[in-house]
């Protein structure tokens, strides 16, 4: 298996946590992994992205090629579109539909949705709303991850194990909130 994933969002929305969870599950399978992150100036409320590469074979480049990504996994709708040049023709966009509006000239959200819907393989849904409904409002990122795991080729059990390993030190309540978020996202993805 080989998966190249662009994770997208705005600084502070939790894309690196998504990367860590997928990465933990991939390592447990004995896969190779490379993960390029954005640090520094760009994190101050600006757009952020991470290139996450998983493969059964050795991986060379830290960066995904343009046209090489199997998935854009985004916690913000406009940010999903920013990385469209990376997506391959059969690739998936899986994104939160709730805008993170910290700029004066944020475009009409319907224009953003119609661009996302023009990509044949897409999942566009209000992850923030779902996270609130299941009383896991800080786990919106995990809801988005849940919607993606089928297309990433991971089982629910594998991702749950990774979540338990990563959040264990934060206490059972946080682990459970994230598991609920994952399950709610999986329901959307199926």
């Amino acid at each position, binding site marked *: 298996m080989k998966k190249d994933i662009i994770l997208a969002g705005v600084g502070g929305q939790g894309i690196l946590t998504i990367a860590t969870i997928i990465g933990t599950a991939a390592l447990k399978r004995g896969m190779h992994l490379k*993960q390029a992150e954005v640090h520094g100036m760009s*994190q101050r*409320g600006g757009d952020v992205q991470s290139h996450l590469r998983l493969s059964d074979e050795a991986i*060379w480049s830290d960066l995904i090629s*343009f046209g090489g990504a199997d998935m854009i996994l985004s916690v913000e709708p*406009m940010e999903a579109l920013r990385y469209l040049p990376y997506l391959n023709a059969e690739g998936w966009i899986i994104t939160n539909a709730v805008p993170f509006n910290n700029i004066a000239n944020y*475009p009409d959200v319907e224009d953003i949705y119609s661009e996302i819907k023009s990509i044949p393989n897409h999942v566009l849904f209000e992850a923030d709303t779902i996270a609130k409904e299941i009383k896991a409002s800080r786990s919106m990122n995990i809801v988005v991850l849940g919607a993606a795991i089928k297309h990433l080729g991971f089982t629910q059990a594998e991702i749950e194990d990774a979540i338990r390993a990563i959040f264990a030190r934060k206490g059972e309540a946080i682990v459970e909130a994230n598991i609920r978020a994952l399950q709610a996202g999986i329901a959307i993805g199926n």
Partner: protein
Amino acid sequence: MDALMLLGDEALAQGALDAGISGFYAYPGTPSTEIMEYVQRSKQAEGIHRTWSSNEKTAMESAIGMSFAGKRTMAMMKHVGLNVAADPFMNSAFTGANGGLLVAVADDPSMHSSQNEQDSRFYGKFAMIPILEPSNQQECYDMAFYGFELSEKYKVPVLIRLTTRLSHSRAGVVRRAPISQNGLKTPDDLFQFMLLPAIARKKYQHLIELQNDFVCESAKSPFNSFQFEAKDLSKGIICTGLAYNYLNEVFQGKEIPYPVVKICQYPLPNEQIHELYNKCDSLLILEEGMPLVEEQLKGLAFTGMKPIHGRLDGTLTRDGELNPNKVAKALGLPDTYGKPIPAVVTGRPPMLCVGCPHSDSYLALNEALTEYGRGHVFSDIGCYTLGFMPPYNAINSCVDMGASITMAKGAADSGHFPAIAVIGDSTFAHSGLTGLLDCIFDKSNVVIVILDNSTTGMTGGQDYTAFGKLEDICAGLGVEKEHIRVFVPFKKNFPEMVQIYKEEIAYNGVSVIIPRRECVQTLKRKHKMEG
């Protein structure tokens, strides 16, 4: 041992720890910061020097001192930090090392978080010392061991050059058994670190004599490789650092048809480069950064008998970092660029955080300056540089660390009024003090605003050497006590803040204003930790 998932920065740090280092010296700077942050988190590093230095020059000098004492040590900085440390760095090539001395510099091609994209390999060549340029995280780790050995074998400092995509990318790294630290041992030759002209001339001769040894080391380096056998000799490829990965990415699953030379240790092994040139009809140079290898190969008298392609002739972009697609195009392969970014997508530049103390300080400063119009505020590098963005549009310059104060001074010397400097508290500790002393010496008519958020903000909240001492430092340097003004930048204090700015603008002399309120990011983190 199991593989650890480490950033390139972290792999270098772990490598240095396992290779028996005794002290790390650094000032934060993207993309190098995570080297020291990793060490500060590491239990293994207890008892090893790992606190931040005031700036890159003091860091480099401290590392030279530790090397003098026989211990292994490393100075770490971003590329422009090496400009600050250039004086001790260049001279360390003459003094040489006693204990292993590594200088780790993280370059930022494409300027993700920097004001230029200078290539530190030029500094290494300038200083005539060996350069190591890892191409992956494992090499970052291994090069710490190798670098210390090389440094101690020839008694020279060794430059390790990282770039953003390696510094900030994570992959599996396999550790070796740690080795113990060196004991204290003063140099055998007590003239070694004495660069008086008569000694320095001998040192330079010695460094010149070592050049051939360095080339031989590159020729047999485990990090360089020479694949001369290939089916297609129309092109020979030289890759440096990360470019080697992009080449392999492009040909993944297929055999590379051309001869390939991988360079991760410099100076260039010239015999092998000649062999490649003689064997092939043309050369393609793939390097992450500026065209250092390409320029060396072409030289001024290059007649173009055989074409050498690279960044200089437009085969690759002259600026910016490489990626697999740029490399594919340079090889004449099709580009796989996906759909273009839809026009509806707008930019989302970095900005001051909601609730940032700097935003209140800037809004009040703008108000105080209304009657003078724009073009009076000099600034430099830090979170506060984002005061350039709307709605603040508050600053008019960003050149280098500390330049706010000295540029304001120069403008004031010319008669420009008012001349305001805006500098962060950590940047003031880095290189503001000497500029302030210049202002006091000349009684310059400047207002220096030290935006005190009590941390090094832009790089993620590191502590710094002048914390809690700003008023004492300013008074000690000679600023009159009644012209050191402190306020808390909150909206509710707006009238008082504007009034203080106006009063100090009206004063003909050196004023220091310190708006003091903790960074909202570090505050948030503290609250989280306290639960």
